């Protein structure tokens, strides 16, 4: 039986590319035909950019969808999904567009496929405004494991903005059983470290970053790591990791031109401190990323910071596909409890 097409307003809330990606994931998994209007209406360059088009095309390929409006700068798309097919895929993304965002878009669908998938990605692996490869593998996938799925990733080459050229592969096994995810308590801090990733940039940059972290957080030398990697273009980021009994949080900061090493490290430290000083179990970014896999599986609940516009918009989009999937309850000033009703509850 065919479902009727639903219309999503791409300009709601923060009005960015996330509305498109979340809608595509849900459309694929729920076999729900959709039309998205006003795509990225409020942005400087509205409509579909290359990285968004790549997401649409990747989703289309995986579930053999019929698509209209899949053109650059198009302000709408119509997406009618078909059967999801596991298998081997390769997605190359121009302009160092984030591979992790494409990965997160197609992941829920491939988890539902009948067979195992091997997906290789080419493009950006460490971009600003997108989860880094480190974050995906060390934080997001760790939490996902608690829901059920097992995804194995392997990085062959780093790809920094703006030149990209990174390469990695994800092996996605279809989900068998799912569990409710409950993250209401961090548990004890088990480990912590600061790692810099650096390529084709003088090493003193990374050393200054680590020095700043050590100085600000009083971390010891054996908690500081420097990882010189290979990539096509130059790049650098600092990644602060906190491992708790129940969750792993990462605080990444990608270095930018015109920003001193100390400032980059300082920004990462501020994010970490905000988290540490709060009662949140799940950090701002992970909170956003978990909504979708939880809603499509067994649901659950977690404690996080006061939700950003980004998270709220994401929740609203999900609720449009699945009635009352997500409820957000404010506990106190910077503490919020999110309860997700999964469809496989």
């Amino acid at each position, binding site marked *: 039986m065919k479902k009727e097409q639903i219309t999503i307003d791409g300009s709601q809330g923060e009005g960015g590319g996330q509305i498109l990606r979340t809608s595509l994931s849900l459309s694929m998994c729920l076999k729900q035909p959709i039309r998205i209007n006003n795509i990225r209406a409020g942005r400087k360059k509205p409509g579909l950019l290359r990285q968004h088009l790549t997401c649409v095309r990747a989703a289309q390929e995986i579930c053999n969808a019929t698509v209209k409006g899949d*053109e650059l700068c198009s302000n709408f798309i119509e997406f009618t999904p078909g059967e999801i097919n596991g298998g081997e895929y390769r997605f190359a993304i*121009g302009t160092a567009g984030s591979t992790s965002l494409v990965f997160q878009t197609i992941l829920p669908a491939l988890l539902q496929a009948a067979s195992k998938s091997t997906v290789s990605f080419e493009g950006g692996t460490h971009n600003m405004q997108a989860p880094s490869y480190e974050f995906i593998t060390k934080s997001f996938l760790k939490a996902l494991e608690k829901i059920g799925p097992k995804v194995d990733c392997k990085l062959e080459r780093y790809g920094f903005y703006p030149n990209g050229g990174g390469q990695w592969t994800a092996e996605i096994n279809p989900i068998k059983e799912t569990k409710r995810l409950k993250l209401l308590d961090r548990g004890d801090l088990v480990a912590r470290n600061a790692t810099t990733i650096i390529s084709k940039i003088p090493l003193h940059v990374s050393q200054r970053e680590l020095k700043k972290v050590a100085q600000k957080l009083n971390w010891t030398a054996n908690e500081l790591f420097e990882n010189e990697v290979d990539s*096509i273009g130059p790049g650098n980021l600092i990644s602060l990791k906190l491992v708790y009994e129940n969750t792993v949080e990462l605080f990444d900061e990608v270095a930018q*031109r015109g920003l001193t090493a100390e400032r980059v490290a300082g920004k990462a430290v501020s994010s970490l401190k905000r988290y540490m000083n709060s009662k949140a179990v799940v950090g701002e970014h992970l909170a956003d990323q978990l909504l979708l896999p939880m809603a499509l599986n067994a649901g659950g609940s977690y404690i996080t910071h006061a939700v950003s516009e980004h998270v709220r918009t994401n929740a609203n989009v999900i609720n449009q596909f699945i009635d009352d999937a997500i409820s957000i309850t404010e506990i106190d000033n910077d503490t919020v409890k999110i309860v997700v009703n999964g469809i496989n509850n």
Partner: protein
Amino acid sequence: MNIDMVSSESKKTTVVSILGTNLDRRGKNAKRWDKWRPNIALCQQEDMIVDTLVLLHEEGFKRLAEQVKQDIETVSPETEVLFHQVDFSDPWDFESVYSQLFDFSQSYQFKPDEEDYLIHITTGTHVAQICLYLLTETNFLPGKLFQTSPGNKTNPTVGRYQIIDLDLSCYDQIASRFNQERVSGVDYLKSGIETRNLKFNKMIEQLEKVSLLSKEPMLITGATGAGKTQLVKRIFELKQQRGQITGKFVVVNCATLLGDKAMSALFGHSKGAFTGAAEARKGLLKEADGGLLFLDEIAELGLDEQAMLLRALEEKSYLPLGADKEIESDFQLIAGTNNNMNKIVAEGKFREDLLARINLWSYQLPSLKERIEDFEPNLDFELNKFAKKVGQLVSFNKGARAKYMKFATSSAASWKANFRDLNSSVTRMATLSEGGRISEDIVDDEIVRLKECWNNGLQSVNDPRNIAIKLVGEEGANQLDLFDQYLLMGVSQVCKDSKSMADAGRKLFGVSRLSKKSTNDSHRLKQVLAKFDLSFDELN
């Protein structure tokens, strides 16, 4: 096949770009990724996908081209890079660059139905940019101009791009200039007007050859307004374009050269040569040295000046007024006239040897009336000319055009001043047009105006009937033989020019009065005038 999917497929984008031998060459190590490289950056734009990049490069830069191709594969897997080798023997030499790029435009298989073309003008020498501009503007490269620039300090490597859609109306002037270069010499001489008159076309064809091969004088005969000055100007420009002439174009209407001044205006004078010659004057012949001198209405030139001109033509030197040393000037002479020169020679008013010298190549420009089949293309030409001048397009509505054409090609339209009349007529109608449309009402008014203008013209010219009408009224004139009309015209003219009736009589009867016993010239004149019911006082 799913129809929806086909229809949603948009055109592919192809960029044509020259390999930047400086901007794209930033070394082989990773540092090159820190630099803005236009051909890489144009493939990195987040709101544009370059499906094909046609990279024009010289043979010596094959390696660099390969590197650029590889780097593009990294940043833009969607892009296919094609090489096209060019050979700019000198990248700053207009001719070499233009011909290479022109050859490319002719050899590349453009598919404008399937692909959009962007012509990238950021790389290459300025000469190459100009050539790309010209080829795009004239649609030899059927695309839009495309420009990239580096970004800000925090992200210099990707930068920005701009697509420049040539709004032709803004570039009319440049376009028309380039257009003129493209048309062949023949079309050039015809101002690009598609003339249909066989005789005229043949004449122009020969004129083109002669003007490009010969430096000898030419004589162009044609009625007033037939376009002599225009044509000579274009001959000059054609010769100038082909590099055959370096000097100036000097136009002189001999009818405006009067008396002593004619001599000094043409040939110059030394300081103090005559009263009032406070400063030395170079003269127009010297001004035209190495260039082209157009002497219009040559028949009006005085005999002294003719002799001097002949010498200047034959010796390429002459003696300015009051000077004791000859000066040299090497110019090409084109003479214009609306007279029958042979007749003027017969009358002793023009030197036969000078005519022989200047009519080596002699062309008769037909009047507008004589090549009325060219009226319509010339009408369009005038409309365009007006549009360019004013910056607004002017056209007839259908009915108005038909009406105007019908009148213009009928026998009622005399087109007395030829193209000058046509030009004025179009200017009037175009000026009166509302929103650039010439309506039937405007044409009606214009036809009346033209008729009046040509009739008034008759009155001012020596038309005996019109003068008779003026003097004795239309009814009276109807009663007169043409012989009498001429008689009246002549007599009235003499009367006007005379102080008294006796004076006029003496002139009119100057021969017969000698054999008369009594000379009563006034009486004889009075009798003649009485025949027309006129008196001397009425005429004077």
